[in-house]
């Protein structure tokens, strides 16, 4: 049943370019898709461990910069006359390195910031993202600072026996983003249903109890942070090779806010939540653009956000699933309650 829905959804997404011919809408879907991947990775932290990170854009941006610099090359000097010169590598290597280095950053940031909880954690993650932004802005020799990295090459995929395929068109990039999103979804789903996933949820529900039954808090949280950061890095790499220019503005706070909005409105702790929330808030600006003044579009954006939270405070997917389950229960016998429905009063 569940697998059937997943396959149908993927097939529906895969069919979009067959009937949607407008390149502008396809472009909007690709950028939305990139942000949905990032939102899914944020959901792993926010929805399954309960840690609200407001610095997630840092990993996205690090992925974008690592990937861009790997494929463009750089030449930097260090104190003491030592120079580090890097010749351009294929973009696909950049993609892999983006995942690895973003994951590594996730490890260190996790190690430091999981010492605090709640509001303190929120602020530490914001601080971290700001410091990374300022480094990208001021380390001009490496990142070119505000002068931006331009002419970032498109991703090329090597097919054995068939040579290289450079993904330049929107159609190719759409399927690339869809494929990465699907892999990320499967990975997160697998993780959540594993022993590790149960440890994460145990932690979220009652940290003291989780510790008493032998869950290693720091290890569990750090591992979640590493995987989450690595996926965000992958999304950042896709972004860099699709938009083909990045500057420190990629670390803008509004980008983190966009991800958080996608996760929470869609439903944190629900696998499909970020996808649903992402589609709504990724495409909302596209819908609003032709019908109202620029300032009014933002007011409407904020208004829609507030209304969704008031009507469905736990997010769209969990709230609808709950209603559906309730109706089924009324119709038939007692159905088991989905794991994602935590014993919590709907506010």
């Amino acid at each position, binding site marked *: 049943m569940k697998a059937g829905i997943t396959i149908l959804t993927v097939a529906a997404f895969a069919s979009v370019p067959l009937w949607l011919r407008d390149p502008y809408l396809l472009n909007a879907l690709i950028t939305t898709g990139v942000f949905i991947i990032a939102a899914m990775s944020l959901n792993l932290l*926010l929805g399954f461990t309960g840690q*609200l990170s407001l610095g997630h854009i840092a990993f996205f941006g690090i992925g974008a910069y690592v990937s861009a610099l790997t494929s463009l090359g750089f030449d930097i000097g260090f104190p003491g006359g030592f120079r580090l010169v890097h010749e351009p590598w294929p973009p696909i290597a950049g993609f892999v390195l983006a995942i690895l280095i973003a994951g590594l950053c996730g490890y260190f940031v996790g190690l*430091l*910031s999981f*010492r*605090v*909880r*709640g*509001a*303190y954690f*929120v*602020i*530490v993650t*914001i*601080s*971290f993202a*700001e*410091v990374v932004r*300022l*480094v990208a*802005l*001021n380390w001009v020799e490496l990142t070119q600072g505000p002068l931006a990295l331009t002419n970032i090459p498109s991703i090329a995929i090597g097919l054995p026996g068939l040579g290289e395929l450079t993904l330049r068109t929107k159609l190719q990039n759409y399927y690339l983003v869809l494929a990465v999103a699907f892999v990320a979804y499967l990975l997160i789903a697998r993780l959540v249903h594993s022993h590790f996933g149960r440890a994460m949820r145990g932690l979220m529900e009652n940290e003291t109890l989780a510790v008493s039954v032998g869950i290693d808090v720091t290890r569990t949280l750090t591992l979640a942070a590493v995987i989450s950061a690595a996926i965000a890095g992958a999304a950042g790499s896709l972004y860099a090779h699709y938009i083909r220019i990045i500057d420190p503005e990629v670390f803008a*706070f509004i980008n983190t*806010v966009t991800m*958080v*909005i996608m996760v*929470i*409105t869609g439903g*944190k702790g629900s696998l499909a939540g970020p996808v649903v929330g992402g589609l709504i808030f990724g495409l909302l600006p596209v819908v609003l653009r032709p019908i109202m*003044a620029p*300032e*009014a579009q*933002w*007011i409407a*954006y*904020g*208004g829609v*956000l*507030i209304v969704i*939270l*008031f009507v469905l*405070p736990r997010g769209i997917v969990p709230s609808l699933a709950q209603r559906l389950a309730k109706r089924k229960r009324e119709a038939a016998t007692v159905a088991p309650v989905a794991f994602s429905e935590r014993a919590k*009063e709907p*506010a």
Partner: protein
Amino acid sequence: MSEFLQHLINMLVLGGTYALLGIGLTLIFGIMNVVNFTHGVLYTFGAYIMFIVVQQLGLNFFLALPVAVVAGWLLGAVIELTLLRPLRGSDIDTTMLVMIGAWIAMQSATLWIWGGVAKSVATPFPDAPLVLGPVSVSWLRLFVLAAAALLIVVTYLLINRTKLGCAMRATFQDQDTASLMGVNVDLIYTSTFAIGSSLAAAAGALLGPVYVIFPQMGDLAAVKAFAIVILGGLGNITGAVIGGFILALAEELGAGYISSGYRDAMGFLIIIAVLIFKPTGLFARSERVG
């Protein structure tokens, strides 16, 4: 040496400003556990009230300040009653996101009404600065420092010497017990948010004339306020004041002697360092996990 003295003077005037920004937020953050993203908008709101009263209505500069405080108080109460009260008991991230929605909508409304061009407010203070040997400081900023100090003292007395303040402190320590003891928690929450908001509006009204007034002016102010609150510990007014001066000192010396590009990084690096070594802030009264 004279450069160092000038940096110290700058730190004093800047620190007073930061302290004022911090105390309003620390009350809301500490007592209500709301990550209040409208703090910056209320700061902007106070500045625009100043602009309307002084530049458009042509009224007295000193009259405009209390007007901004009252207007901020009212707007804060409205936000609490319409957006926060219905969501009482929700997660910290749900209320935070509602505040983010309000922030986006209100900031865009400001842009729509006033446009993006920066406004400035004429002040009754002389242009020539007060010169003390090798250092100098503008009269307006001295006035702001004095007004900020006054507001901080009033707030401190309100929290520590009045019945309302006593109820607020009780709610901060244990909401359920306070409620059992007959404290009207709803009223406390609305009052807290309104007081915090009026302090943000006061900060905007004082600093609008020092700087320039534009719709996004609150964003940077809000980020600094968050940093100050965390440095000082949630709900701790004295902590917020000291945190404000520490942040100002770090920025001044960082920009003066390390690199101006990393000026804003100083505050964040201090936060990261403080939370690693003393996870509850420098002056926290009690840890609050949630």
